[in-house]
């Protein structure tokens, strides 16, 4: 019954989405006031998808093996948290989660949005309904998560052990919330292009959604990076894997959008460009979903290789993005641009920011799909990896980081003050860092050296917007910007340090052997068998010391029985100045063990920087929402409400 309830809720939600879309067309054509009906439908639709998702959670939590999806992706012996998280550790479940977030976001748009014009909001609700409708069809026709299995199986086939990690509970939902949050920006942009009401009111309505989605994407990418770092046991934090790129591309577009939307909100300028970015940001989310779900690119993430589903998703992508682009091409010209600005102004700074981010986005996009284009045209196979991305995107990102220090100091429209004088102290910091790296480490490569230099400069420059003013009176949004920009500096230093100072040791060791890695002496003291709830393992006991005190680490080589898979469980110890990272490999014929040891100075700054960037976003969002609430309290009967209830 539970699975059938979920399925019924999904069908109902799909019907309501269709109705919502039809109402949108009716109301835009005839001007009839259908707003109340549309809002209610959007809310009910959100509730229905939540019910469907809850039903799937229940069948997974109860290990109901009569549901095919549970049988294929779960096992009764799994720890409870992975039974629950396993709900979205598979194709159907994760697509249901995607649709649920899409519909719930639509419901919140119906409840919250009051700033954009009423007609634009209705058009946006219609666009959101059409988006949802495509994905409902995808679930119901090509990926039914509630399909029954007859006869029910005795037990399931288990969950990929790489996914049996707390990371699974958070990484996909966070990324999906971010991906799908951008759908609201997409729908609002489409709605505004339909009604022609592209103005600062729209930008202010769209901004919290973009900000929220961007925060979650930042968190999702940062957490995903750390997850890959400790779970895969390769010691790297970013691999330029196609699916990592698929999450980076919406982030880059959203970052550009986040900045250009401020120009639209404050100055009424960059209208067409901002709408384009809003469309592109969500398009990139759909491209990402398509790449993961179709499995057409070779990747650690390629779970489901199914051409039929790929075709369906590609069709949806082509329809939605194509329609939005056509709309843009037809309506973009009628947008009147806002007031002009001088060459040296905050507008120019943000335009350059957008240009560089777009170029980086283009570079990542090209690098990700280039092998596909080449093989389609010439039949030749090649792969594009870190050397390309590092060499091409790296320097651009560094140039952007330099400008990040300057942009916030400029004033709107026209800058007449001697701004560059303010940058003396940060410039001095950068030059000192450069001098130190040249003196102490003359052999350091250019990118890490530039990373240290620009990181030090930016750490100083990023806090300038609140220097010299009462910090308590600075708006929260300004604080958010400062924290986020400071986070870039922190992450940059972490990356530079990881690139320049990591020491690696690969060795075959017998119990008793002592290995040196960086400042550490690591002794393999013993290798013993151990077991968990659904795995057995061999565990090495490592005793590490650098001068005083001994710490012990226990990396494992785990064997999971359902399905049979071997994984490396790394053992990592974090210190204020770096991480000691250890991996146990196989035993060779003579009874010696493969060990991989890394000492990574200040590597944690990479994720700390990512977290700071997200915290900065959260501060800005809090500030914006606070002002929204505050304004509403002082003027409770504003906007469409006043019109309707008066």
């Amino acid at each position: 019954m539970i699975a059938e309830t979920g399925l019924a809720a999904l069908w109902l939600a799909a019907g309501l989405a269709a109705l919502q879309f039809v109402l949108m067309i009716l109301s835009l054509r005839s001007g009839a006031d259908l707003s109340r009906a549309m809002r209610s439908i959007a809310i009910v639709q959100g509730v229905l998808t939540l019910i469907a998702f809850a039903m799937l959670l229940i069948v997974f939590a109860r290990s109901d093996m009569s549901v095919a999806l549970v049988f294929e992706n779960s096992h009764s012996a799994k720890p409870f948290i992975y039974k629950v998280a396993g709900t979205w550790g598979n194709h159907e479940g994760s697509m249901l989660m995607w649709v649920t977030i899409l519909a719930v976001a639509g419901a919140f748009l119906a409840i919250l949005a009051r700033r954009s014009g009423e007609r634009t909001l209705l058009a946006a609700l219609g666009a959101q309904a059409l988006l949802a409708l495509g994905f409902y069809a995808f679930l119901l026709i090509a990926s039914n998560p509630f399909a029954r299995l007859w006869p029910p199986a005795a037990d399931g086939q288990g969950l990929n052990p790489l996914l049996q990690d707390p990371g699974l509970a958070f990484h996909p939902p966070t990324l999906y919330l971010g991906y799908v949050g951008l759908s609201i920006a997409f729908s609002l942009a489409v709605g505004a292009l339909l009604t022609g009401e592209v103005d600062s009111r729209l930008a202010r309505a769209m901004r919290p959604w973009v900000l929220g989605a961007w925060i979650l994407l930042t968190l999702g990418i940062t957490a995903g990076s750390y997850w890959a770092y400790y779970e895969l046991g390769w010691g790297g934090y970013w691999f330029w894997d196609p699916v990592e790129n698929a999450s980076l591309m919406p982030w880059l577009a959203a970052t550009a959008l986040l900045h250009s939307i401020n120009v639209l909100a404050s100055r009424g300028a960059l209208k067409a460009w901002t709408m384009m970015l809003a469309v592109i940001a969500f398009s990139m989310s759909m491209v990402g979903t398509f790449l993961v779900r179709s499995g057409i690119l070779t990747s650690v993430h390629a779970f489901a290789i199914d051409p039929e589903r790929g075709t369906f998703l590609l069709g949806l992508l082509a329809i939605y993005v194509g329609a939005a682009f056509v709309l843009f091409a037809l309506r973009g010209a009628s947008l009147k641009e806002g007031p002009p600005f001088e060459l040296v102004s905050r507008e120019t700074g943000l335009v350059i920011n957008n240009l560089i981010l777009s170029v980086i986005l283009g570079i990542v996009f090209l690098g990700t799909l280039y092998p596909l284009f080449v093989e389609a045209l010439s039949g030749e196979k090649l792969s594009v990896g870190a050397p390309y991305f590092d060499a091409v995107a790296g320097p651009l990102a560094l140039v952007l980081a330099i400008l990040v220090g300057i942009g916030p100091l400029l004033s709107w429209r026209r800058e007449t003050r001697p701004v560059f004088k303010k940058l003396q102290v940060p410039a001095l910091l950068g030059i000192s860092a450069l001098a130190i790296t040249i003196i102490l480490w003359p052999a350091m490569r250019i990118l890490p050296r530039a990373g240290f230099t620009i990181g030090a400069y930016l750490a100083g420059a990023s806090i300038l917007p609140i220097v010299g003013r009462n910090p308590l009176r600075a708006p929260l949004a300004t604080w958010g910007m400062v924290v986020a920009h400071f986070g870039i500096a922190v992450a940059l230093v972490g990356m530079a340090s990881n690139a320049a100072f990591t020491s690696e040791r690969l060795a075959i060791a017998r119990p008793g052997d002592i290995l040196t890695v960086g400042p550490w002496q690591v002794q393999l003291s013993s290798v013993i068998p151990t077991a968990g709830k659904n795995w057995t393992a061999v565990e090495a006991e490592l005793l590490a010391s650098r001068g005083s005190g001994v710490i012990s680490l226990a990396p494992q080589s785990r064997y999971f029985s359902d399905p049979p898979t071997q994984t490396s469980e790394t053992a990592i110890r974090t210190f204020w100045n770096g991480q000691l990272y250890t991996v146990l490999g196989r035993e060779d014929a003579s009874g010696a063990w493969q060990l991989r040891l890394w000492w990574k100075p200040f590597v944690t700054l990479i994720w700390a920087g990512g977290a700071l960037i997200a915290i900065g976003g959260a501060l800005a969002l809090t500030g914006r929402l606070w002002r929204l609430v505050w304004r509403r309290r002082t003027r409770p009967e504003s906007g469409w409400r006043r019109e309707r209830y008066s």
Partner: protein
Amino acid sequence: MAKGALLMSRALRFAPLGLLLVIIAALVWRLATPADTNVHSTMIGRAVPNFPPVAATMNTMDFGSSDLAKGRPHLVNFFASWCVPCIAEAKVLDVLKSRGVSIYGIAVRDRPGDLAEFLERSGDPYQLITADPQSDVQIAFGSSGVPETFIVDGSGIIRYQHIGPIEPDDVPAILSKFERAR
């Protein structure tokens, strides 16, 4: 001038759409022609690499690279007792053997005891078997997994590579390739 600029800006506004179509076309192509993830050997058309005869079990006869250039073609089959598809393939190899194909086996990363047991259980279509304990011979042939099969002609030139187990359906094709190598 103004008209030209207008046309220009209109073209520019349709540019994203054009780009999208190109990308969609590439993605459609990829969906229609799934990627070939096999690793194809670059040794086709070249002489077999040198390797010495190494005894695989107590009861089997071994062979080296020089035995492959004695005027008659051979099927060189990389297999292992720990390889599950090889169990199914052994029956098909028996069929080929009964059609007069001489099959030489190379046992990859195997142990004599396990191998003897495998031959007893799954059948022994091999005339000769050489052990390849560290995959050296396999890598020299340009093979990336088991089972894989090469057709070597009478002068010791590698003529054909079959990746994965030989299925019953593949028998006619293998036979004709083998005939051509004579």
